[in-house]
């Protein structure tokens, strides 16, 4: 039974919807479908991206210091004539400092380690190598690290399928192989392999661990060894390092601290956002595509709501005229039809959230073997509340928008014209 003025609005709205069960059901279904896809798609994309971020971005340093050998400095001749109206032709000019060595690398490292905002820093020097076992050869690189520091930064321990990271220190010539390299070589724990550097240095090494990061490319090319072995392979002295990786206490300070370090030490310092700019931009495109799909689905379901309300209004012209003649204001009529749209949005939204959740659960439980940029055995789906909240808000906003125009049309109906035309 009717109660109060708002009650009247709801009563009329629900009676309208109830009298058109089929269309109402289809409109609700449209919103349900849109929201379910929204929840599922966002969950899938967000899940995949956060997995990827965890794997790549967390395995890159917050700040990375290295000698930027690739940037060309202008030659002395070019500098001399920079402002003059003289044409300078130079051929066979090489202006690069070819040596990527960080001079005083270990002193810089020590100094950085004492910085109050730094939680850890690790020296790095890598060498291109050929891994060889009997007749099988695999090309890759050996990352020469101080494994205790490296493990503290990037949690190498958690990626090991067999073995222990401490082996790199305790076993001379120990090596940790990426799991794909190990598979290709047919190498197992404690096997001996040969490593050959571009300079022709050959080292016999013992596999003391196999790592699986989940990133296909890394697992197929990277091995870890003690930094001294990398230096030996490249015939460098014990002070020779090319990179310092730094983890910060607060990741958001990376940009500023990178600039500080660059000024202080005279080497290029890159923060993680710059280092992963290409990945982050792929995410942006990916998100855009996803949201375009979702928006187009909601636009379609919005048109469904628009349609059913328009039909309702044409059918209920006389009702609207009579309601106005007995003193309902235009705003009251607007509320009635807007309420109808909101009911469709509300029910469709809630059911859509539930359907999307179960769809995510279902798809997330299917074992799928993916070997792409990342390798996983099932889809990573995010159930972040922010997805569900934004989906619900989106359902309400889009249905309100779709309902507003028909509702306004209804509120503008002139009862005289309706009554006269009968």
């Amino acid at each position, binding site marked *: 039974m009717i109660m*109060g*003025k708002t009650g009247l609005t709801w009563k009329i709205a629900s*009676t309208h919807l109830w009298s058109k069960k089929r269309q109402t059901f289809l409109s609700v279904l449209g919103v349900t479908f849109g929201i379910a896809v929204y929840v599922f798609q966002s969950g899938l994309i967000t899940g995949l991206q956060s997995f990827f971020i965890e794997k790549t971005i967390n395995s890159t340093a917050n700040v990375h210091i290295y000698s930027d050998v690739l940037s060309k400095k202008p030659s002395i001749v070019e500098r001399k004539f920079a402002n003059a109206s003289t044409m300078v032709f130079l051929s066979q000019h090489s202006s690069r400092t070819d040596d990527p060595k960080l001079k005083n690398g270990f002193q810089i490292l020590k100094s950085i380690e004492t910085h109050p905002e730094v939680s850890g820093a690790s020296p790095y020097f890598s060498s291109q190598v050929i891994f060889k076992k009997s007749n099988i050869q695999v090309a890759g690189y050996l990352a020469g690290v101080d494994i205790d520091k490296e493990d503290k930064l990037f949690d190498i321990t958690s990626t090991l399928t067999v073995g222990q990271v401490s082996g790199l220190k305790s076993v001379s010539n120990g090596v940790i192989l990426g799991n794909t390299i190990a598979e290709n070589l047919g190498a197992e724990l404690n096997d001996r392999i040969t490593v050959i550097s571009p300079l022709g240095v050959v080292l016999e090494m013992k596999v003391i661990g196999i790592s699986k990061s989940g990133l296909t490319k890394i697992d197929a090319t990277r091995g870890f060894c003690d930094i001294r072995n990398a230096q030996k392979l490249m015939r460098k002295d014990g002070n020779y390092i090319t990179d310092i990786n730094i983890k910060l206490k607060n990741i958001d300070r990376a940009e500023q601290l990178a600039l500080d370090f660059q000024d202080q030490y005279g080497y290029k310092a890159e923060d993680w956002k710059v280092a992963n700019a290409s990945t982050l931009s792929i995410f942006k495109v990916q998100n855009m595509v996803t949201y375009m799909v979702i928006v187009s689905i909601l636009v379609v379901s919005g048109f469904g709501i628009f349609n059913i309300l328009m039909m309702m209004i044409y059918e209920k012209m006389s009702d609207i005229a*009579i309601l106005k*003649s*007995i003193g*309902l204001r235009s705003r009251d009529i607007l509320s009635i039809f807007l309420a109808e749209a909101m009911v469709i949005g509300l029910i469709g939204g809630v059911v859509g959230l539930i359907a999307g959740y179960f769809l995510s659960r279902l798809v997330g439980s299917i074992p799928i073997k993916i070997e792409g940029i990342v390798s996983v055995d099932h889809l990573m789906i995010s159930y972040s509340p922010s997805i569900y909240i934004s989906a619900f808000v989106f359902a309400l906003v889009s249905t309100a928008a779709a309902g507003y125009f028909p509702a306004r049309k209804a509120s503008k109906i002139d009862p005289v014209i309706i009554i*006269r035309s*009968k």
Partner: protein
Amino acid sequence: MEPLIELQNITKKFTEPVEFRALDNISLTINKGEFVCITGPSGSGKSTLLYILSTLDSIYEGEYSCAGTRMNGLTQNQLADFRNENIGFVFQFHYLLPEFTVLENVMIPAIRRNVETKDNIRKNALEILDLLGVADQAEKSANKLSGGQQQRVAIARALINKPKIIMGDEPTGNLDSVNSKNVLQILKNLRTTIGQTVIIVTHDEHFALASDRQIKIKDGKIEQS
């Protein structure tokens, strides 16, 4: 005699398809408690006059005041409130809300007015339905009733807020002669029992003859009043 409605120099123009004056400089006074019939041939402007009187049409030239309130200056919302409080409507096509019960239909204007409690509104609605002899239909869906019954319910709805004026646009136009007589009798009784002012647009000769006063309209002008 206390004047309830005063029209001064009301002109209503239509511009489509060509400009013409549906009402041409009409001045008119209707007193409290009068039973007035507006008659005239089709297209004479009698319905147009009623829509202006009912405040549904607010676009015209001239001065209109009703129950001491000047209508010209009011906003659409104020007009809606005024209608809700002061004017009860009965149309040719009964215009009940088909999905609602008879009782609900009668209660809607009072709920819109939002002055009385729900229980009081229901009690009043049942009393009025009883007065009009359709109390036994109260819980039925409105579209299950016969034409004559529906028109009585429409009159009950028009009465629920105890309006100063009841207006009817061909209220018997869609009824057979027996039901027409009934409706006429009901409206006349209202006048005698509660001193209700009634203004009816009609073709119906019987109806016109039974009224206190006939206003004949022709070509947008008052021919006789």
